[in-house]
């Protein structure tokens, strides 16, 4: 168990600590190293953001933590310490018991996360009955409370309805309600608002914020949208090609992005760029995970690239307190 010193010097226990996680996909064409050495730490009650393009490995990292990686993918290395227990070493039964109860997950598509042939009440109660020793009636009451908690009007009526009766925003609220139903210590939210309208997005994010305050769950917020990160997260990880390339407090990241990829991301967002500058897309494509270039994986697209960037994968170095970066430019950092 890692103990860190908090701001006031108190001992804080890391809720989740991921060390050198590797999840590879074994395909006919070769081994795709989707997650290849990811480290992260989430404290109790904090919101950690994880940002990157599609294909960078953020979703698979989340699935690895939940042990929901399906073939041909497999977690091949690393440790996932949840309250000190390595989740990867648990047998299937034990891992299953943690899911939904201690760690729960919200997926991207609210439209399809709920089973269309069962009522909403059924799907919420199912979770509750599974993890807690309650009667059907008690579970029903809890379900009603949860619906009210996430802001669904007329909760009692909703329980008997089917998912297709509700809008995307409502469905996502219900998915969140199910994720919260057993008071998990950690909620993993994989692109929770990407499929929703902008106005609904704001509502859902606000909901998640207020719930976090009420229940003190930690949230791992995965998204490709820097705006969402800015709004919600306290700390943030930037992922690229299966590795964490930068890690910082949100304010630090926006004020002083260190990794060229992060800088590229910032420049391609209209809100952050001053009026006279042009929006720049990052040139090139995400590398083929089956055939990674030697050395830094961002090298082909990097505007600061130099020959010796190809010598190997740069280690993650702490440049200033809480701000780490994986880049040969910042080699001489504080260890």
């Amino acid at each position, binding site marked *: 168990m890692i103990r860190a010193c908090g701001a006031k010097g108190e001992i804080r226990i890391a809720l989740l600590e991921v060390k050198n996680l590797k999840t590879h*996909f*074994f*395909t*006919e*064409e070769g081994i*795709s190293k*989707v997650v290849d050495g990811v480290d992260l730490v989430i404290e109790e009650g904090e919101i950690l953001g994880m940002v990157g393009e*599609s*294909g960078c*490995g953020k*979703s*698979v990292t989340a*699935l690895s933590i939940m042990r929901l*990686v*399906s*073939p*041909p*993918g497999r977690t091949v290395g690393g440790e996932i310490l949840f309250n000190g227990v390595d989740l990867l070493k648990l047998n299937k039964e034990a891992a299953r018991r943690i899911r939904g109860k201690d760690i729960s997950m919200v997926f991207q598509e609210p439209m399809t996360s709920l089973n269309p042939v069962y009522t909403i009440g059924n799907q919420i109660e199912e979770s509750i009955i599974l993890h807690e020793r309650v009667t059907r009636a008690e579970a029903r009451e809890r379900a009603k409370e949860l619906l009210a908690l996430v802001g669904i009007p007329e909760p009692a009526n909703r329980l008997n309805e089917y998912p297709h009766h509700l809008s995307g925003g409502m469905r996502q609220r219900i998915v969140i309600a199910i994720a919260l139903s057993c008071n998990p210590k950690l909620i993993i939210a994989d692109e929770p608002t990407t499929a929703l309208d902008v106005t609904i997005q704001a509502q859902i994010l606000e909901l998640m914020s207020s719930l976090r305050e009420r229940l003190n769950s930690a949230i791992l917020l995965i998204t490709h949208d820097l705006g969402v990160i800015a709004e919600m997260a306290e700390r943030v990880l930037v992922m690229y090609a299966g590795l964490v390339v930068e890690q910082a407090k949100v304010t630090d990241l926006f004020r002083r992005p260190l990794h060229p990829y992060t800088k590229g991301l910032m420049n391609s967002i209209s809100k952050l760029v001053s009026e006279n500058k042009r929006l720049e897309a990052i040139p090139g494509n995400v590398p083929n995970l089956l055939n990674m270039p030697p050395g830094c994986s961002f090298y082909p697209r990097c505007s600061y690239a130099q020959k010796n960037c190809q010598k190997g994968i740069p280690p993650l170095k702490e440049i200033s307190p809480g701000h780490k970066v994986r880049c040969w430019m910042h080699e001489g950092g504080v260890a």
Partner: protein
Amino acid sequence: MNKEAEAVYSPRIQTGWKYFFCKLFSEKLVAAGVIVLLIMTFVAVFAQIISPHNPLGVDISSRLLPPSQAHPLGTDDVGRDIFSRIIFGARISLETGLLVALGSMGLGTLVGLVTGYWGGIFDHIVMRVFDALMAFPGILLAIGIMAVLGPNSMNVVVALIVAFIPSFTRLVRGSVLSVKENTYIESARSLGLTDAEILFRHVLPNCLAPILVQVTIIFVFAIRAEASLSFLGLGTPVPQPSWGNILAEGRNYLRDAPWISIFSGLAIAITILSLNILGDALRDIIDPRMRGKGGD
């Protein structure tokens, strides 16, 4: 679905005899199917040359003989050589299958194009008639028509074409209806193309995929239907050899000469099996979206 996981998929590697099954059920099988079909076609075309005996040659003294060197598959109740009869039966089956598949495809497509494109009263009437036709299970319709026309291998072809036309028409009409709304049809019209030109040059190519898929299906159905009808005595009339009626003859001698029914049925089964394998493979190529409907 997780995009990262979606892009990659492959069979798990198995070992030993599990590996055998994995390998067997892949390209090898399709190759086997093709070979069988080529043999069948060859046999059907060159039946006269290959056949060791006259399929109609009656020889009471050699009736009900088990398989031997002279008669590789035995003889039937009037001494005819089963092997020769099965060879000629291949001709009937493949001919029928081909004629029915092409006939119903051609006519059905034509009707579908016309009714889909122009609609109107003609469309209504035709669709009602076809609804009536489709209200009967296929084989029953064929039996009904054969009852009217009388047993004869040409009549079988006609009956089956009639039975299968509605399926093509429905398919094509549906395609035409959806393609019709596309803007490139509008622009073609505004460029001054005649209806016929639009129909054949723009509408038809887009319906091609489902049509080809259906042809492969109908071909198999037709062979099976012809065999069933002949088995019942309502198809190819005796003494002309069709696998179906050989099977029927064999039924009376199941105890004493089971080889008659066994081999004729085997011929049907192997042919249909190969066609199904090929059909599946073809369907995967023509329309990969259909994958998973019949089996991955």
